[in-house]
C-alpha cells in the first residue's frame, strides 16, 4: 500500500524542487498533498496531471499557480498572485482569498473559484472546445478588462463584498464566445466593444445553479442567497467581431 498523503514544508524551498517532490509523490500514488509555509513560490502544479489528487497550499503561492495543469485540485488557504489557472486544462483551483491579474488567462477547461476579488483581465481569452468548458467564479469583484477576447467558457462574478461585480471599463471587449454572468447588472458604459448585456432567463439561471451551489459549499456560504439573486448575462454581440474589418488587396 503506497502512502496516500504527504506533507511538505515549503519554507525556503525553491519552486523546482517543490514541484519535483509533488510530481514524485503523484507518481507514487499519493492522493493528498499539503504544502505548508508557502511564500511566493511560482508555478505550483505547473503542467501537473492526476485527476484524483488534491493539493492544499497553506500560505501565498506566487504567479501562474496551476498553469497548464490537467486534473488535480488545488486549494489555497491564502491569496494567490498573478494568473492562477493560466492555460489550465482540467482540474480545480479554490482560492480562499483574492487573486491578482489575468486569473484563468486562456484557460481551456476545469474550474477556478476565487472567494474574494480578482485583478485586471480576469478570464481573458478563455476558450472552450467540446466537453472542455472552463469556469471561473469570483465571489467578490473584478477589475477592468474582465473577460476580454473571451472565446468560450463561463465567467461568473458575484459581487458579494458589497461592491458591484465590476465597475470599470472593457468588460468583454472583443468577446466572441462564452458568457460572463454578473449578479445584478453592470452599467452599460463598462461594456467593451463587441459585448452586450442581457437579463438572464429562468432557464439560464437554472443552468448555473449547480455551479453556484458548488461554489457556496467550497467556501461555506449559504447557497440560498446566491440562488435568490438576479443576474445579467454578457455575451458577444457577434461571433465574428473582426469579420467586417478587412478587405482583400
Amino acid at each position: 500500500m503506497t502512502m496516500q498523503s504527504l506533507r511538505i514544508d515549503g519554507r525556503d524551498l525553491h519552486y523546482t524542487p517543490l514541484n519535483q517532490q509533488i510530481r514524485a509523490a503523484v507518481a507514487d500514488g499519493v492522493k493528498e498533498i499539503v504544502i505548508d509555509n508557502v511564500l511566493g513560490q511560482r508555478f505550483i502544479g505547473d503542467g501537473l496531471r492526476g485527476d484524483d489528487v488534491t493539493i492544499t497550499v497553506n500560505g501565498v503561492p506566487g504567479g501562474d499557480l496551476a498553469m497548464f495543469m490537467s486534473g488535480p485540485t488545488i486549494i489555497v488557504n491564502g491569496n494567490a498572485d498573478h494568473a492562477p489557472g493560466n492555460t489550465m486544462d482540467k482540474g480545480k483551483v479554490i482560492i480562499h482569498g483574492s487573486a491578482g491579474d489575468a486569473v484563468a488567462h486562456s484557460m481551456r477547461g476545469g474550474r477556478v473559484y476565487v472567494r474574494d476579488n480578482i485583478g485586471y483581465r480576469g478570464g481573458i481569452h478563455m476558450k472552450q472546445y467540446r466537453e472542455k468548458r472552463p469556469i471561473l467564479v469570483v465571489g467578490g469583484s473584478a477589475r477592468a478588462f474582465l473577460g476580454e477576447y473571451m472565446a468560450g467558457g463561463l465567467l461568473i462574478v458575484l459581487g458579494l463584498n458589497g461592491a458591484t461585480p465590476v465597475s470599470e471599463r472593457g468588460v468583454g471587449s472583443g468577446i466572441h464566445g462564452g458568457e460572463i454572468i454578473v449578479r445584478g447588472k453592470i452599467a452599460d458604459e463598462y461594456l467593451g466593444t463587441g459585448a452586450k448585456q442581457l437579463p438572464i432567463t429562468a432557464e439560464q439561471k437554472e443552468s448555473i445553479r449547480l455551479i453556484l451551489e458548488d461554489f457556496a459549499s467550497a467556501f461555506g456560504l449559504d447557497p440560498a442567497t446566491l440562488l435568490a439573486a438576479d443576474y445579467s448575462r454578457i455575451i458577444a454581440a457577434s461571433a465574428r467581431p473582426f469579420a467586417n474589418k478587412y478587405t482583400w488587396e
Partner: protein
Amino acid sequence: MSIGSTPLKFRVAIDTDRCMNCGRCIENCSYGVYRKEGDAIRINSRNCVACHRCLAFCPRDAIEIEEKPNDYRSHPVWTREAREAIFNQARTGKIVLAGMGNAKPYPIIFDQLVLDACQVTNPSIDPLREPMELRTYIGKKPSSLCLRQLPGGDVELRTKLTPNLQIETPIMIGHMSYGAISLNAQMALAKAVSRIGTFMGTGEGGLHESLYPYQSHMIVQVASGRFGVDINYLERGAAIEIKIGQGAKPGIGGHLPGEKVCADVSCTRMIPEGSDAISPAPHHDIYSIEDLKQLVHSLKEATEWKKPIFVKIAAVHNSAAIAAGIARSGADAVVVDGFRGGSGATPRVFRDNVGIPVEAAVASVDAKLRQQGIRNEVSVIASGGIRESADVAKIICLGADAVYIGTSALVAMGCRVCGTCYRGTCAWGIATQKPELVRRLDPETNAVQVENLIHGWTDELAELMGAAGINSIESLRGNRDRLRGYMLDEGLLNVLDVKTVGA
C-alpha cells in the same frame, strides 16, 4: 461605383493553335478563370492571380499570362499599388489585407554584401576531400566548464549542460501553422526535416496527431492565442517557441477567419468549428520583460527543464536591447524575424512599412549580446527573406547561429509567390483547407523536393565555406571579416560592422 473597374492585373490568353482542348486548365484553376462554353475554353482574366497552376499543368504550353497589360499613366509617386489601394479603401472603408512578405521595393542588404574567398596566401578547402562541420547546436552554452580529473585519468564534466537542439545543417523551417497551410504541406515539411536532421515549427495551430511520428523534429509554438496549447502538446515538442512578434506584422496579433476553421483545424486548435481564432496583439500574461521571464520559466517548469525555449520577435528598431532582455529571461534562443518575413494574411500597411531588415537586426543583436558578455546565453536564429544559400552564409557571418526558412520551403512545393494565401483557395494545396485542393499536394513527393532544396543549400554553404578556407560553421559565425559591403552607406556599414569592398 463611380470608380469603375480597375485595369486587369493579369491577362490570360490561350494560343488556340497549340491548345488541344484537354481542359486541364479548367480543372486546375481554383480561382475560376476558365470555363467551357460548347467546345471553346473561355477566360475571365480578372480572376487570375498568376499562381501559374494552369501553366504548370498545360501539356502544350498554350497558356500565356501577361502581367499588368494596361498601364496607368506612369508616375513615380502615384504607383499603381498606391492608386489601387486607394480605390479599394474608397469602396470598402476597410483595412487592406495582403499575403506573403514586404512588397515595397526597398533595397535588399543581402544583395549589397559579398563573401570572401581564399587566393594564394591561405589555401581554400575542398569539401569533397575534407570534412566540413555544419552541425549546429541551438541553445545555451556554458560560460565556463568545470572539469575534474578522475583517478585513472578520465575527466569528468561537472558543469550541468542545458538541453540544446542538434541540427545537421543551420537551416530550419519556420512556423507555418496548420490552418495557415494545409496538413499535407505540414506533413511534407515534417518528413523533410526528419530525414535531414533539422527542425520545423508548428506555428500557433497545435500539433495534428498525424504529425506525432515527427514530433522529435518539431518546435511547438506558444503564441498569444494559446491555441492548441496543453501539457501534451508542450511535452511532444523538441523545443518550445514563444511567439511575441512576426516580421510580416510587427506589433499586432493574428486572426484566422472562421471559414478556415474546419473540423480538423478546430480539433488541433481546440476551438469550435467555424469560430474566429483571434490571437491578441500582446500575450495578456506578458506586459513586461519580467513577465516574459515568468512565461519562459513556466514552460521550462512544466516540461521539467528538458526543452530549449525560443522567443521569436519581429525585427524592430530596438531589437538589440529586446534580445538582450530575452537572453536574460532564461530563454535558450532568440528568433529575429525580419520585415521581409511572410504571412498567410497581414494588413498591407504593416507588411510594407513596419519593422527592419533581418540583416541589420541580427548584426545589432549579435553585437549587443557580445558587448554585454551574454552571447553564449542564447542562440540567434534569423528569418524573413532568406532566398538562397548565400543569404544563409551572409546572415551567419553577421552573427546568426541558424536560419528559419518559410517561403523558400513553400516555393520548393510549388508556391509561385502569388501572394493570395489569405483567400484560402491556393491551387497548389498549400495555403488552403479545401480537401479537393489539399489532395493535390502529395506529402511524399513534396518532402523530397524540400529535402532536395535543403541539401542543395547545405552543399553550397559547404562550398562557400571551403572557398573561404573555413571548415566549421563555428568559424563562419559572426565572422564579419569574410563580408564586404558593396555600395552601402557608412551608417549601415557601421551597424553591420563590415568594411566596404576594397578595404
